[in-house]
């Protein structure tokens, strides 16, 4: 059998992975074996966190709405607001309500007063 060197095949594959990992810290962007592992971990985290992102933002919106609603009246809370919202069949979702709460608080008070009636 003639001797065959592997040449540049492995290197070509690894430079693509190295490009992905180029902004990582320390050995995670320098050592070849660590680079392959870190790329896999990064992609796994990204996949998992894309689903978590939806959950996390909804939690944040709910906390912000709750903070503003409780600050307005005694014995009023996010849960009661949502109940009233559904009763009046208002289709505003939590994202929009949270942005209204942060940027234009009086508008949210107007909405909540309307739906309490």
């Amino acid at each position, binding site marked *: 059998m003639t001797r065959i060197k592997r040449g540049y095949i492995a290197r070509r594959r690894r430079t693509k992975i190295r490009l992905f990992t180029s902004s990582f810290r320390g050995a995670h962007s320098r050592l070849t074996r660590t680079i392959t592992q870190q790329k896999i971990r990064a992609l796994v985290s990204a996949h998992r966190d894309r689903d978590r992102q939806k959950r996390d933002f909804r939690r944040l919106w709910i906390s912000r709405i709750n903070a503003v609603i409780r600050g307005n009246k005694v014995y009023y809370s996010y849960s009661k607001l949502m109940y009233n919202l559904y009763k009046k069949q208002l289709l505003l979702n939590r994202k929009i309500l949270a*942005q209204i709460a942060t940027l234009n608080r009086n508008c949210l008070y107007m909405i909540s007063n309307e739906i309490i009636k």
Partner: protein
Amino acid sequence: MALLCGSTSVRSQDLSVVPLDERWMFEESEVNGPDIWNKTWYPKAADHVNTDKPWYIVDATDKILGRLASTIAIHIRGKNLATYTPSVDMGAFVIVVNADKVAVSGKKRTQKLYRRHSGRPGGMKVETFAQLQQRIPERIIEHAVRGMLPKGRLGRKLFNHLKVYKGSDHPHEAQKPTELPIRDKRIQMTR
């Protein structure tokens, strides 16, 4: 506050004077302002400078320990604000005075135990509420509030925003602290 008047961006260009083949040069956010309906508000550095945060003062005389610590922790963490963000310190500073007069219900004064361990075998030290109040009264409120703040880097930083004092005077007059708004009616110990 810039938050309340909506979009504060200055429209740098009115796109109607720009020829059609150059319109790609202008970003949507430059023309119409930031997209508030598709990007959740996140605080910029200017939104949480420590010098602009409110200072609150609370007198702990005859207030139930846990209920007081709960309201303090909520204000320090910023959970009562519309701008609440879990990753950013948006809360206020809280000063507690007369910490040695804080009250507990039931038999907790003699039965509640504060434990700490020095790390070495047999190094568990146990004290009752009354003993600790004699020794270092500030530590009672600090222990209570620390248990209610998040544990982590941010939580440790938040803990530094709590200032507890034994007597009724405090060195923070220059910050002009206001009364901490307390909504819990059962916080005051009724004899």
